[in-house]
Structure formats: C-alpha cells, structure tokens
C-alpha cells in the first residue's frame, strides 16, 4: 500500500489524534443528559466528529492523489531561531526589562534568515528599541519594565 497524498495523510492523523484526545478528556468530565448537559457532552460529540473526519481524510489520502501533496522542506533552523527569540523575550522581559528583551528578540530572530547582516540588524535593533520605549511606555503607558531590575529605581 502506498500513500497517495502525504499532506492529507498527516492531516488525517492529526485530526484523529486531536479528536481522540478531546474525547478522552471529555469522558473524564460529567457528561449529563441531552436535556441537562454536563461539561463533557459537547466536547465529546465534537471530538467524535473530528476523529471521524480524520478517518475519512486519512483513508482518502491512500486512494486519491493531488498535484501538490508533497510536504516540502521543513524550515528547522528558522523555526528554532524564531521561537527561541520569542522564548528569550518572554523569559527576559520581567527581570531584564524591555530594552534587553527587544535586543534579544531582534538579534536571535535575525539568525533565522541567511540574508541578515549583523551591522544592519544592530542598527535596526537600536532604532526599534527607542521607538518601542517611546511608543509603548511613554505614549501608550503600557505597564512594562524598561530597564534591568538592578538599575531600576
């Protein structure tokens, strides 16, 4: 047996997995009756529908092909750099403040593209830092610490 449509093959698996997961979760809550629905009633039905759709998409992918069913290259490096940059921003923000966090998110995420040049990125990071502090902290009054905790007053 061969897979005719790789995209649908994985979509089917994903739907089955999510549908099944939600059904399993829903069963742990009170189901109730149709007239007095418990917390698990509606999610159980939806999970069932999703799993069923998953089965159909999965089976169909084994029979019917499509012209653009290849998954293509997966951008591992850009993904790691991008989400790493976001994680760094989230972790740093409270303690190190907005300025450091922005430098981190810009510099790390710039590594996601091969075309980035360090000098350019540094200039844009400084500009964006200044602009964000002015815009978010002074103009919009958002409650974000600006500087690292050890130089805050």
């Amino acid at each position, binding site marked *: 047996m061969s897979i005719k449509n790789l995209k649908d093959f994985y979509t089917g698996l*994903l739907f089955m997995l999510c549908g099944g997961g939600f059904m399993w979760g829903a069963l742990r809550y009170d189901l109730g009756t149709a007239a007095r629905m418990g917390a*698990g009633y509606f*999610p159980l039905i939806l999970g069932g529908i999703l799993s069923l759709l998953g089965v159909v998409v999965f089976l169909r992918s084994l029979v019917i092909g499509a012209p653009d069913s290849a998954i293509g290259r997966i951008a591992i490096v850009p993904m790691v750099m991008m989400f790493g940059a*976001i994680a760094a921003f989230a972790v740093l923000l409270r303690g190190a403040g907005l300025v450091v966090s922005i430098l981190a998110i810009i510099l790390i995420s710039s590594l996601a593209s091969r075309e980035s040049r360090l000098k350019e990125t540094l200039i844009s990071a400084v500009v964006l830092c200044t602009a964000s502090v002015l815009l978010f902290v002074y103009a919009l009054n958002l409650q974000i610490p600006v500087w690292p905790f050890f130089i805050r007053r």
Partner: protein
Amino acid sequence: MELIDNLTLGFQTALTLQNLLYCFTGVLLGTLIGVLPGLGAVPTIAMLLPITYALTPVSALIMLAGIYYGAQYGGSTTSILVNLPGESSSIVTCLDGYQMARNGRAGAALAVCAIGSFFAGTIATMIVAGFAPPLTELAMTFGPAEYFSLMVLGLISAVVLAHGSLIKAVGMIVLGLLLGMVGMDVNSGVARFAFGITELYDGINLVPLAMGLFAFSEILANLEHGAKREVFTSKVSGFWLSRQEVREAAPAIVRGTLLGSGLGLLPGGGAVLGSFAAYTVEKKLSRTPERFGRGAIAGVAGPESANNAGAMTSFIPMLTLGIPPNAVMALMVGAMTIHNIQPGPQVMTRNPELFWGLVASMYIGNVMLLILNLPLIQIWIKLLLVPYRLLYPAILMFCAIGVYSVQNNTIDVLLTIPLGILGYVFLKLGCEPAPLMLGFILGPMMEENLRRTLLLSMGDPSIFFTRPLSAVLLVLAAALVVAVTLPAISRKRETVFVEED
C-alpha cells in the same frame, strides 16, 4: 426619517476630534500593513486589541475597522508595483495591475483602485445603514434553536466559499470549536482541558492564537521561499485616466461594488471572495477577454471595488447577528467582548452611538484613504524598499509586545510558541487557519445555545426541525453541502480559486 436621525447620530459620534483621530490612525496603519507583504489585517488587529482597552468602545472599533478596510486599499499598491499581493484580497489585482505598471500606466492603475474603492466604500456604507436595521429586527425573533442553526449555516457556508479541501476545512472548524471549549465551563464550573495551568482557566486567549496561526507561520513561510521582491522603481506619474480607460473602468467599478457587497454579506464572505468573483465576471463580460492578464483596466477596477465593498458589508452579519463571517470579524467580536458589549441584535438598540458611529466612520475613513493614497503614494513606495530581513524581526517584536500587553502576562507570549508551531504544521499540511478561528469564537456560543435549546425541549433534538426558521436554516446548510459536492460545481469552485495558489 429614522435613517437620517440614525446617520446624524453616527456622524456626530464619528466626527468628534478623538474618533477622527482614531479613524485616521486605523486607516493609516491599515494602509501601512496592506502595503507591506507578510503582515495581514488579522495579526495587526490582534496586536492592537490590548491597546484598545484604554479607549472607549466606539473609538476602539472605529480604529480596528479602519485597519481592515485600509488594508484592502494598501494591498493593491503592492500588487500593482511589486506584483506581490500585500493582502490576499488583492491577489487578482496582480494579474492586470502589474501589467498596467509595466505598460507605463502604474499611475492610472493606482488611481482606478483608489476611485473604485472609494465608490465601493460609499455604496457599501449605505448598504450597511439600510440593511442592518431590518436584519436586526429579524434577529430579535431568534431563540436559541435559531441561533444554533444559524451558526451551523454560517460555519458551513464559510467553508463552502473558502477554497481548498472541504472536508479539511470542516475539520479545522471542529478543531476550532474544541479549542474554544478550553477553560472554565460556565454551567458546571469545571476547568476543561486546562491541564492544571491556571492561566488556561479563562480559556485560550484570542490574541496569541491569532498571532501563532497567522503571523508566525506566515513569517516562516516567507523565510522558506526567500521573499524576493522587485519594486517597480520608475517614477509613478500620470494619475489621470484616458477617456477610453474611464469608459472601460466605470461599469466595472459599479459591477464590482454590487457583487462585492452581496458576497460580503454572506457568512464566510468578505474581501477575498468578492475580488475573485469580480475578476471572473469582468473577464466573462468583456468584449476583449484576451486583454485580461495583459493590463486590462477593468480587471483592476472590478476586483478592487469588490474587495473594498465586501470588507465593509461583512460587518453586517457581525453587527446584527453577532456572528462573525470571517477571521477579522472574529477579532472584532473579541474586541467588543473586551469592552463588555455582547455582539448581537441588541447592540443597535442598547449602543446606537456605537453602531451608527462605526457606520459613519467607515464613510469618513474612505475619504481619508482617498487622500492618503494618491498624493502619498511615493512614501508607500519607499516603504516597499525595506528588505524583508529587517522587516520580520520587527514584526516578531511587535507581536511579542502585543501579546504580552493583553494581560501583562509572559505565559501568553510563551503560548504563542506551540500555537505558532501548530500554525506552521497547518501551513505545511494545506489546512486553512481561518475556519479554525471562526470555530474558536463560535464554540462557546454554540454550546450555550445548544444547551438552552435542548433544555427547553427536554432533550429532544427534533426541535431544530419543528421550529420553522431553524429548519429553513439547517436545510439551507445541508443544501450548500450537497451543492458543492456535486461534480459540476466543485469543478467551478476550483477554477475560481485556481489563481490563489
């Protein structure tokens, strides 16, 4: 004349200095992100949602609405000058707009976009003002059964009108409905699917979801393809149309406006659908269809009028029924809930200044856009020269700050990472994220209405078919599903959307 009274109230609200300022900010930002490829209206509105906390609800909605229809304006500029759609609704504008630019008629193409959009905006504003009150009265008679059936119809037509695999789109809706279940169940007080994470007790926040699914996966996709751009650098001039061009463009603008307004009303409609349909219609009606794709001005005028009209009339289902027809309107519903306004027919009676102020601001916004777009075009062109390698880290930064400021919460920022990965997986698997967003917003409403209906009928589901209005809505939904699975129509559906891929 009630309509005139209402519109007067609307203009009084929209013409205050504060609201004019927010309207201007909205359309300016909208044009900006419309011009920039790779940043759409959905992540921008999501990013700005937290900032609107501090505003009055009217100002907030006026600004967010301005972003949406402003983006339709800006998107066409990029299409014409760079042959790269700034927004998905201006994909078809690339076909003839870019060719016009190559023929030295870039100025005329930009002018016809602006005039067409302005005309469409004017007519669509009138349609919103005229159509909304009767629809609201109808919606007032709805019980929970009708609402549930209406949501089913809305969700079904949203996927029918979208392109790509129908069954996968339905799956995405159901997944969205399920994600909407996460958090505290209002009836029993049970925290569902929260895995003991306290921050999830209130449910998944709309903003990180929109960012993850729309913004981050888009950046990854652009990095993968290596966003190459060639800006049309020659000076843009000659905004005046020749007499021949006026003769060709004028009827196309009228047709595009009507078509776009009609399609915008439908659930699942909005800007994108109208532009594709208008292009097909213009090509069919033209006496010289062979000129399409080589710089036919009707091929620019029709779709550009249609996408603007559609963007505006798609507010009608959201404002009158409380049911968002597309992902942008789903965010608008989110914005209203932030301000404790329950979207639905009662908005017009309880908050008339909000409703009519928004309608009037759309008209004012269109005037502003006309002024912004033609004389300032050179500035927008300069903006296009910023390389993507500098743009995407900035987009990422604004997204991160935006997500954080929703609840001053770094957990929400971290939550965008798994959601972003999910968005990338969907992108790779050819699953559209927009239906998921609709499901996510409608999930809790659907469950609530289903509960109420079955409570009233003592658990008997046949109530959905014995209440006439509800039965009609469900039959319509079923008919739609049957219709698109018929081979003749499904083939047609493919051809309409073929240019999108």
